[in-house]
């Protein structure tokens, strides 16, 4: 019994010790952070000194919100660029959990990486961690999504609302929609409602549909929660309730397999021009999406260049470390464009996933 008590006391002492360590340090941590900051300042603030940081000595921390075809391409962009430059990459996946992402940011700061490339799960929740890193003198480059409530070194953003709106708007002007007798009965697939990208796309699609009432009629929105199984079931149910659907809009190519499967079951997965074809507009531009256009099943795909996003993330982080002037401002938009089955030959080769097509 005595021994048992002893072990408990020891554990408590250990814990108190740790807490006390933390306690004493509140003053000094500020100091160390300050000295670090001034250290890196003296390195970077004076480009004329020609003490450019050698890329080979650098380690960049990367934390991504989760992994899809799109984000894999972004990670490829990061890894390839870093490998060319000789920069080491520490890659972490927050698995859709912003608390986990905050912990990963803290651990990257503790590891004293030279810069952090952050693809936030939640724009508001990441703010505190971004501030912590900036305070510790570690530049942060946000990729794909913005941070709301802190000032990072650079934001490379994906303007998903505009691109989704453009996708639907351009389609409404296209020859596919000329001479319509009645508006197209439209289904909209929805991502996770706790994800700003999904919400932006949904809002853009709703707005664009409302703006062209002669072209589109919104029949149903299908919640998928970024889960293929949920999306498939929702789509099956919607299709059995409405057998005259003309058009499906999806915010991500990750839903294309479910769309194919659901349409297949009712015999409507047909090539463009065939009788009974259901039109599909998608986003992401990953290899699934472009392949479906190439094979003639999908009308259009909005491509956001994920690979360029990753590449820019690494390049900008390096530039910032070297104190290079940022002429293009604190926030830059990722280039986006729309690949359709009509312009495939011209536009598709510009997409990051073109090399993966068969």
């Amino acid at each position, binding site marked *: 019994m005595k021994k048992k008590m002893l072990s408990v006391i020891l554990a408590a002492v250990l814990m108190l010790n740790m807490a006390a360590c933390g306690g*004493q*340090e509140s003053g000094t*941590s500020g100091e*160390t952070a300050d000295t670090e900051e001034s250290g890196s300042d003296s390195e970077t603030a004076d480009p004329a000194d020609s003490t450019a940081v050698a890329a080979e000595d650098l380690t960049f921390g990367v934390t991504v919100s989760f992994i899809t075809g799109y984000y894999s391409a972004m990670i490829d962009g990061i890894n390839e660029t870093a490998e060319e430059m000789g920069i080491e990459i520490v890659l972490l996946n927050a698995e859709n959990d*912003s608390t986990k992402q905050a912990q990963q940011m*803290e*651990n990257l700061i503790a590891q004293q990486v030279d810069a952090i490339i952050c693809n936030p799960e939640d*724009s*508001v929740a990441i703010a505190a961690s971004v501030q912590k890193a900036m305070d510790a003198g570690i530049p942060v480059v946000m990729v794909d999504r913005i941070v709301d409530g802190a000032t990072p070194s650079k934001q490379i953003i994906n303007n998903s609302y505009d691109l989704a709106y453009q996708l639907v708007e351009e389609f409404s002007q296209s020859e596919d929609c000329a001479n319509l007798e009645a508006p197209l009965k439209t289904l909209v697939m929805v991502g996770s409602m*706790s994800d700003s990208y999904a919400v932006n796309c949904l809002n853009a699609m709703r707005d664009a549909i409302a703006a062209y009432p002669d072209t589109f009629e919104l029949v149903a929105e299908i919640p998928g929660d970024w889960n293929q199984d949920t999306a498939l079931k929702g789509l099956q149910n919607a299709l059995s309730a409405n057998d005259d659907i003309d058009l499906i809009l999806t915010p991500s190519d990750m839903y294309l397999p479910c769309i194919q499967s659901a349409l297949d079951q009712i015999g409507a997965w047909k090539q463009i021009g065939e009788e009974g074809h259901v039109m599909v507009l998608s986003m992401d531009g990953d290899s699934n999406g472009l392949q479906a256009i190439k094979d003639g099943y999908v009308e259009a795909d909005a491509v956001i260049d994920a690979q360029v996003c990753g590449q820019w993330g690494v390049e900008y982080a390096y530039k910032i470390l070297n104190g290079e002037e940022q002429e293009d401002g604190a926030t830059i938009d990722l280039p986006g464009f729309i690949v359709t089955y009509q312009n495939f030959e011209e536009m598709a080769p510009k997409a990051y996933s073109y090399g993966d097509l068969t």
Partner: protein
Amino acid sequence: MKKTGVAVKKVILDYPIALFVLLAVLFGVLFVPHFVSVYNMKNICLQLCDLLVIACGYTFVELNAGTDLSCTSILAVGSVVGAYVMVFLFPEAPLLGTVAGIVTILFVGAIFGAINGLAVVRLKMPSFIASMATMLIGAAFATWFASFALGKTSIGGLPQSFIVLGGSGNYFFVPIIIALCMWGLADFLLKRTKFGRDVYSVGTNPKAAHISGIKVKKTVFWMFMLCALFAAVESILLTARNQAGMSNLGSTMFLNIVSAVVIGGTSVSGGFGGVRQTFLGSLFIVLINNAMNLIGVEWYTIMLVQGLLILLATILDYMVKNSRYRVKKAVKEE
């Protein structure tokens, strides 16, 4: 000499994870760069707070061989409703808003606890089913409330007096103190009160407990209630830490909660264990994640290692179980 040998053996058998924690610390100190730094110690303490409180709550349910799947939904519902109260109902009075927000989140926890508890005790539902229902309802409500009723993916702009609870800036000790107090409270309840003794009796053998005059239903109800209330306190800490009310808060945490409790050594079949074990289990998970992040291991390796460790801990638990009875016998004989 033999006496101390038995006593040491008993400690090792009661806290088998202690050895693993020591090994993890040793590994960190020797092989992991930046592990021994003041900043990282602070990180480990904060990250322990992210898990410890809810894991302590879950220990109560685990001691009854039950499950509470809804505990992560409590995090989310508490987070969005609490943030709503603070940001939208009391925009002008941050301090009052903070108090109202905290009370609201605790109230949310109490509702979940009461539903789970009543469903298990009155309707005789298996806790897995009852809590699955409340989990789904909770997750749906949180998403609907944030995304559709308020039109936001996360509710920012929480009052500064609330954010302090998450340990921002120089106030990092606040969540550590809260988490340790909650842990101490749980340990006190389990080890120093009649309720605690009842928990172990009911967890070991509910029939025998009933015959010996323990109010089994009441005890089981309070196990679920405490689990939910601890989850609500965790919701407060995590909402403050993320500085936003979020409808998907803790959606991937369940695995870590169960790992912390089971790796710690609380028996999956109930009746043995406690929050001291859970403390070590939580610390172990935090240490492993932290050390592997610092080394720069890819995330799937971390998942793999965590899976292997759960397997190892469970095997150890079964191996230890037999020796535990032998040692208990030896202690008694003396």
